[in-house]
Each structure stands twice: as C-alpha cells, then as structure tokens.
C-alpha cells in the first residue's frame, strides 16, 4: 500500500495529469460534479456527484457518425474519438459497482465498441466512504462502502491518502506515482474501515433488505395492486433514470443539421411516454406500467438475466432528486415481498 500526505495531493494530481486526462468530483454551488482536473481544482468530499460516473463510459449524448449528402452519394463520416486514456479519481463504491452492471449489458456479445473503448482507456480510482448519509443503502446490495472495488482503491484519513492497486491497470498507475508516494502498512486504513462499518450499521436504511426480490420473481410482483398507488403522482419526468448510475437505456436519433445528418445516441427512459415506441404504439400505455418497468427492471428483470445481480447500487440519487420524492426504497418497502393474495 502507498501513502501520500493530504497537503501533497496536488503533486499526485499533477503527476497523473502529465500523462492522462484526470477527472475528479469538485464542489460547485449546485452540488459536486466531475470536472477535468487542472491546477487549483480541489477534490470534493461529497458522497454523490449529481450526475453519476457512468457519463464517462456512456455519455448522455454521443455522436455515432455523420452523413453528408451530395447528389445521389451519401458520405459516411467517422466521428469517433474514444481513444484517450483517462483516470477517474474518487469514484464511490456504489458507482464503481455500477460499472459492472453496465458492463454486463454493453460488453455482452456483440460488445458496444464505443463503450468498450472508453472502458479500456479508463482507469478507475475509487474512494472509500467515511461519512455515509441517510439516503445511502449500498449495503442492501452487498456493496461495502468502506472497501470499494476499482483499479486503485483509496482511503482518505484526516492527514493522508492511502492507495492500493487492485488490477494491472491500477498497478501501472501506482507505479508511475512512486516518486510522490511512500510505502506504508495498512493499519490506519483498517482502523478507519472498522469505524465506517460501525457507521453503516447505524444508518436509517441499514435494515432495508432486497431478499424478497431477485431473479424469476416476475409473476410474483408484476400484477401487484400497489403499483397503482406507488405511481399515482409520478410525473414521468425520468429524473430518476437520468441520475441513476445503472440506467442504461438509450435511443438513436438522426439530427438534421441542414447540410447533413448527425446520428447520435442519447439516454432514454422507461418513464417516458415514447419509450420503445413501435409502429403498433407504446407497449406501456400508462404511467403505472412505465413506473413498474423501472423498478421491476432494477429488482427482478435484470437479476433474472444476470445471475441474480440487482441493478440498483443504493447510491440514493433517486431519493434526493425525484421531484415527488418517490423512489426505489419506498417501492421496496411497500412491496416488501408480501404476497398478493
């Protein structure tokens, strides 16, 4: 394990930025967000960025290709640019886990090469949490906020940052930082992990369980009458899906620029009235069905297709961002596995 004192963090960042683009959460007056690091920018201590870290691999809009029409010819213009090496610094345990959930979708055969390229070029430096808050429930999904996954895992104490490599990519990054870091044992980290575990056990949502949900439970939950009540005031705005680190739906659109066509993809949301609309219409006619789709996907459909893995990581973003304060925790508590009859 390596260590650097907090007052030297800047040296660490500028060393990384010498060879790769470095992104990290910084505080802004409207919440923390990932920004490209440059001299003077400070790492935020916030737990969640407003937008999740999925943006790095699966951006909200992405130009896929351009077309130019001349007479009867169509020229296809390659616009791809996912070849830059980058480091995302300070990703929390929940967001790191979200990458695995996205990987299973985008890297399944045939792999989505836009996503795959970014994934290959990105190194993830995660940051253990020390002050989990009331909206955190990562432990419901067996995620350990005190010991995240990632290529490099960091622990920040009052005076130092501890770094440990967990993959070849992480090893390579840490080796390149040997000049500014020093060797250390992990005792300070062990101490902190213990404190954080104790804090986790006292969180208001600590006892929330997902056991009732999971693979092959479609029949049990699909027709539950509670969906109507749960969804009754949902605006269908899709905020929950856009801030969610694991939501993965997109649409592909052509934008007529007047002198050509930009084919781009952008996030879509099952909360929208035109989601997966087909010539026969929208398969989910009312907000009840659209709302149900979101939570069934997180808690039942995704696990059914992915060895029981849930596609919520308990980051709590939908808890703090939904305009009507409806969210997956309320859904889980309401449905909680009670049977229909």
């Amino acid at each position, binding site marked *: 394990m390596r260590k650097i004192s907090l007052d030297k963090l800047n040296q660490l960042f500028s060393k990384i930025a010498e060879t790769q683009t470095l992104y990290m959460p910084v505080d802004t007056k409207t919440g923390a967000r990932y920004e490209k690091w440059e001299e003077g920018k400070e790492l935020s201590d916030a737990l969640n960025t407003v937008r999740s870290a999925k943006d790095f691999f699966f951006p909200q809009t992405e130009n896929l290709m351009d077309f130019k029409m001349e007479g009867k010819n169509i020229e296809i213009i390659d616009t791809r640019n996912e070849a830059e090496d980058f480091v995302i610094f300070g990703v929390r345990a929940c967001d790191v886990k979200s990458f695995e959930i996205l990987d299973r979708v985008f890297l399944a055969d045939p792999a989505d090469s836009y996503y795959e390229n970014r994934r290959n070029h990105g190194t993830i430096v995660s940051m253990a949490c020390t002050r989990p808050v009331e909206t955190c429930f990562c432990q419901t999904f067996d995620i350990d906020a005190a010991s995240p996954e990632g290529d490099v895992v960091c622990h920040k104490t009052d005076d130092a940052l501890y770094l440990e490599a967990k993959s070849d990519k992480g090893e390579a990054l840490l080796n390149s930082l040997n000049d500014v870091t020093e060797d250390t044992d992990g005792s300070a980290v062990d101490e902190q992990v213990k404190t954080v575990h104790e804090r986790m056990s006292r969180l208001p949502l600590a006892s929330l369980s997902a056991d009732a949900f999971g693979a092959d439970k479609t029949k049990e939950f699909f027709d539950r009458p509670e969906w109507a*009540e749960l969804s009754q*005031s949902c605006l*269908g705005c899709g905020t929950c899906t856009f*801030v969610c680190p694991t939501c993965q739906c997109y649409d592909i*659109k052509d934008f007529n620029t007047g002198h050509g066509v930009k084919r781009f993809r*952008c*996030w879509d949301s099952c909360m929208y*009235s035109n989601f997966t609309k087909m010539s026969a219409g929208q398969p989910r006619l009312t907000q009840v069905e659209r709302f149900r789709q979101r939570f069934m996907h997180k808690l039942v459909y995704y696990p059914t297709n992915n060895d029981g893995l849930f596609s919520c990581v308990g980051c709590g973003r939908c808890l703090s961002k939904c305009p009507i304060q409806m969210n997956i925790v309320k859904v889980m508590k309401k449905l909680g596995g009670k049977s229909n009859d």
Partner: protein
Amino acid sequence: MQEIKREILINKAKDLLADGTVDRVLGWKAGEFDYDVTPAVFNSADEIEGDFVWNGFCGANFSKYLVKETLKGDGKVLVFLKPCDTYSFNQLLTEHRFDREKVYAVGVPCNGMVDVNKIKEETDSVVSIDFDGGNTVVHTLYDGDLSLPTEKLLSERCVNCKSKKHVAYDELLGEDGEVCDSGRFDEVARLEKMTPDERFEFWQNELSRCIRCNACRDVCPACTCEKCVFDNPESPVENKAPANSFEEKMFHIIRAFHVVGRCTDCGECSRVCPQHIPLHLLNRKFIKDIDELYGEYQAGSVLGNRAPIVDYKLDDAEPSEAVERGDENA
C-alpha cells in the same frame, strides 16, 4: 398569521369524507425522513390518520394533479391549496383544464416552505426534522442536533413570496393574508443590467447543466398540453437530449415563451430541477416585461382573466418598443 396544525387539516379531510362532500383527498404522504413527502390520494380516514403530513416540506403544488384526478370517478376530490397554488388553480380553470364541480378546494395559510438543500448546506445527513417555533431542528448522523432558524431555510420562491392571499377556494382554514411586496424581480433586474455577452454567459453556464429530464415541464401547471411538442416524434424538435448546446437553450426559451402570460410564478420548475437551474428567472423576465409594457398583470389572480399577450387593446405596446428596450440594454 396563525400556524395551521396538521390536526386541523386531517379533521377537515375526515369530516368532508364522512359527510360525503368528497370521496378522496389529495394530500402529502409521509416518507422516510420527514423531508421526503410525496403527493398522494387518500381514500379513507384511516389512511389519512396514518400517513397524511402537513409540515414545512409540503411544497408540491397540487393544482396540476387536478387535471388528471378530476377525470377519475364522479365524486369530488378534496384538494388543499397554499396561497400560491390557488393562482395556478385559477389559471387552469381559466384554461378549462378541469371541471370545477369535481373539486372541493380548501385554502391553507402558509408561512413558507423549507428547501431541504439549504439544510444540506449545513449538514451532510438529515435523519429527521422537527419544527419548533421559528426553528427547524435537524437530527443528523454526525453533527448532533442542529437548530436552524426556519426563515433562513425557506425556498427561494417563499423568500420572494408574491402573495399570502388565496384567490380561489371553497373554504379557508384560518385567516387569509395579503398580496406581498416581494423582491422577486430584483434578480431579473440584475440580469437586465448585464451586457448581452455577460447575460449569454450566465445562461449558457446555467442551462449547460440541464439533463433534459423535463421535470420542470412535467411539474409545471402551465404545461398541460396532451402532447408536448418536445415529445412528439412528428415534430422536428423531439429529442430526448439536446444534440448540441443550441438545443439546450432552445428547449428552455421555447418553453418560457409557451407559458408567457400563463405562468403564475408558482416556482415549481426551480424547486424540482435536479440541477438547480434558476428557471424562474426566465419566467419572471417575461412577467416583468408584461408588467412594464402592458401594465401589471398577475396570471391566475382573477378567474377568466385574459393575458395581455392574447388580448388586444388599442394602446398596446408596439413591437418596436420592445426592440428599443432591447437596444437600451445592449
């Protein structure tokens, strides 16, 4: 103004259910942490007793919910309206968006609603909250109990409350207030003083954060089109995300134009925006311009009012006046 207690609201709701005046109640439902209340329909006295909340977080404006709710069933729905909500209520009625006969409206006096984000500037965790006189007591995980003056935590629209007077109701709980002398146009005036470049920069910075979730539109009581032009696949502007930075701004500017003269300045758009974009400033700019060009006009203040924009008077401002004003600011 007297403080209205939860008991008064739930007793009113239970009475109106019991005597058959209404068969359901639109109210705020308890969540996990006191601040996360959800709009909900209550069907029985038991449900009301259990989960009905009236506290400093009941900001949601129910007027728009009436558009859909009044289409369900034959009975009346009871709705509780804060003063600002009654303007939206009137405006929707003026636009014939719901059947007045299907609603029983009870006005509730309001001292302002708290913005939980302001609490979160003081502490990172909020487990529960009590209101104690003029203070908000926040129980946290790591900072102990914090007692904060509620006045300092009010949401922007409540700091700049335009009216404590209810302009529509069947029945009023407590005493009515007055139209307020608010500073709600101060920030607009500040923006007007900027150079066009500075102003562009200001809005570019704000609107570039937009994730196009459309929460602002979906919550807006002036946005009740059956099919929004931005959701219509037949329209060239239908996009789920802006294709470029021009589109980012276009959505908001078009939306602001679409609600001119109908926006009551209820503040819901800014309240719900996950990116904290001060959308109310766009709408207030239009309101301020209308006030200055056509004389003071408050949408929703009088049932059936015609907004200057859709009305014609001989002495209406000429388009050239707007251009001249623009030149002055340039």
